[in-house]
């Protein structure tokens, strides 16, 4: 069971709902350490002053900000401490927006919220969000850091997904795709048909991290001293022109369909 990371209180106007924050993600990646190749010992990381080549120990490290004009402004601990946000348990809902209002690119990491104490208000808030098909924009301070997030209702429970800051998200309107001559209507039509022919339902459970499995197998085989066989590289033949590639793919996709 996932452990509680932090406890807070959702503040929606006058309403208060105490909750416990738990990660909704479990990291399953295989972690490697970096080894020094000649002797196979794990390497450490040190902070080195490039001017002197000497290691600077942790307690002597200072913080600073580099300006675009090539100056470094050093900040001392006292100054940084003053910038730390005040301690608070509040998860303040500052806005309530339609569910599709937040673009994917804002999302960082999901957390489940568990009711802390009495659960009736917790489930009522989840229901209210679900009924209105809305989500809350929230702000809170956790371990001396400010966060912002989206308060979602999901399967009748509350979830908080942390959001990026405005300056980190490039607005799609700032960009333009490549331009060129008008696309051939016939090719365009075939491309659309191909997309349609390959369309289906999204079933996330069907996808597995095969690579992770293979890495685990490789490690196991090596640990037990077995020889390993690697999959030979294969190259696919490519058709000559875009139009013939579309035609062949479409035919293939249709055949697969009729079999299925």
């Amino acid at each position, binding site marked *: 069971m996932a452990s509680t990371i932090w406890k807070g209180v959702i503040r929606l106007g006058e309403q208060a709902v105490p909750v416990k924050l738990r990660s909704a993600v479990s990291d399953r990646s295989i972690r490697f350490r970096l080894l020094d190749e000649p002797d196979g010992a794990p390497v450490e990381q040190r902070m080195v002053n490039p001017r002197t080549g000497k290691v600077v120990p942790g307690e002597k490290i200072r913080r600073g900000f580099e300006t675009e004009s090539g100056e470094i402004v050093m900040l001392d601990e006292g100054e940084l401490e003053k910038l730390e946000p005040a301690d608070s348990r509040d998860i303040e*809902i500052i806005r309530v927006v339609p569910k599709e209002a937040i673009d994917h690119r804002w999302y960082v990491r999901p957390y489940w919220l568990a009711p802390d104490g009495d659960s009736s208000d917790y489930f009522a808030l989840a229901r209210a969000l679900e009924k209105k098909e809305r989500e809350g*924009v929230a702000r809170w301070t956790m371990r001396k850091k400010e966060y912002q997030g989206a308060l979602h209702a999901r399967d009748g429970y509350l979830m908080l997904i942390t959001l990026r800051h405005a300056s*980190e998200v490039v607005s799609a309107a700032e960009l333009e795709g490549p331009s060129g001559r008008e696309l051939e209507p016939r090719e365009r039509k075939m491309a659309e048909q191909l997309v349609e022919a390959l369309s289906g339902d999204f079933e996330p459970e069907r996808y597995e991290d095969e690579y992770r499995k293979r890495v685990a197998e490789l490690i196991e085989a090596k640990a037990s001293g077995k020889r390993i066989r690697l999959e030979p590289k294969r190259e696919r033949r490519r058709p000559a022109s875009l139009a013939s590639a579309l035609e062949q*793919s479409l035919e293939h996709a249709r055949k697969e369909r009729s079999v299925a």
Partner: protein
Amino acid sequence: MPEPVEDQSAEEQSARRTFWSGTITFGLVSVPVEMLPANRPRRASLRMLAPDGAPLKREYWSPRADGPVENEQTVHGYELEDGRFVEVSDEELEELAPRKTREIDLRLFVDREELDPVFFERAYFLAPSKGAIKPYRLLVAAMESTRKAGIATFVMREREYLVAIIAENGLLRGETMRFADEIRSPEDAGLPKRTKVEKKAVQRFSRAMEDLVAEELDPDELQDRRSRQIEKLVRSKLAAGRDVVAAPPEEERVGRGEPGSDRVVIDLMEELRRRMKGGGAASGKHRAATELESRSKRELYDLAKDLDIEGRSKMTKQELVRAIRPSA
């Protein structure tokens, strides 16, 4: 602290690494692309400094030699329970999924509305490689008019990703997603059984929401307040000339710096605009800023992989530089 709250270092790292380049395929049509991160790093990220203000450089250190690891000659090690390590080379990892390290094969297209935000991890823009503009535009047009997103799995930097490819504004965007088994269910997270809710309580919350309702997200409400405060403090110290030192010249920065320190971080927008116009390799300016010697061994290895240089996994950093240079 039981769990990391936010994996910021990974985010910062990915912003400055060489990006994935490969091919999107749908059916037999292939579209060579390069990935660029779609999000900018935080505005005011602080650097680590020596007491005299010199920006520090992160170095791999060999405890036995009590000195820096030479040539960044390192290998991946998986720690067994008894403390021994199983060594795994880059080449071995790469060969576990030879196709997937180069190809995003879109075998399934789904309605964009079906994509669930809990899965999203990170966004990238996909720019067409030189000569690939036509198939790129064709794929964009077909996906935009059908309102579909393409789904595939691919391997980038020793990890497999589930990715959704989305077309918007004439551009392709890749959103890496978590695998379903990485998302905890309410039961996994130890949430209690759902209980019946009182209509009155629901109404009370619905009313409380009314004052806060907006139809759109206002980015102004999601400003990076900490960065602003730091910038303000920095400006006042600059004006007073307090604790200000000159940043070291470029040539003193060779090596692996702290996140955000190396100038390899390129102007994302400029880079994208340029690529959308003609596609192809980086400009002279960019190349100058990414002189081979100043890259990490990992970055050089990735380059060598793209160039199909043989014997790359056995090469030292210097050997990689020498092998890459003729083709750069």
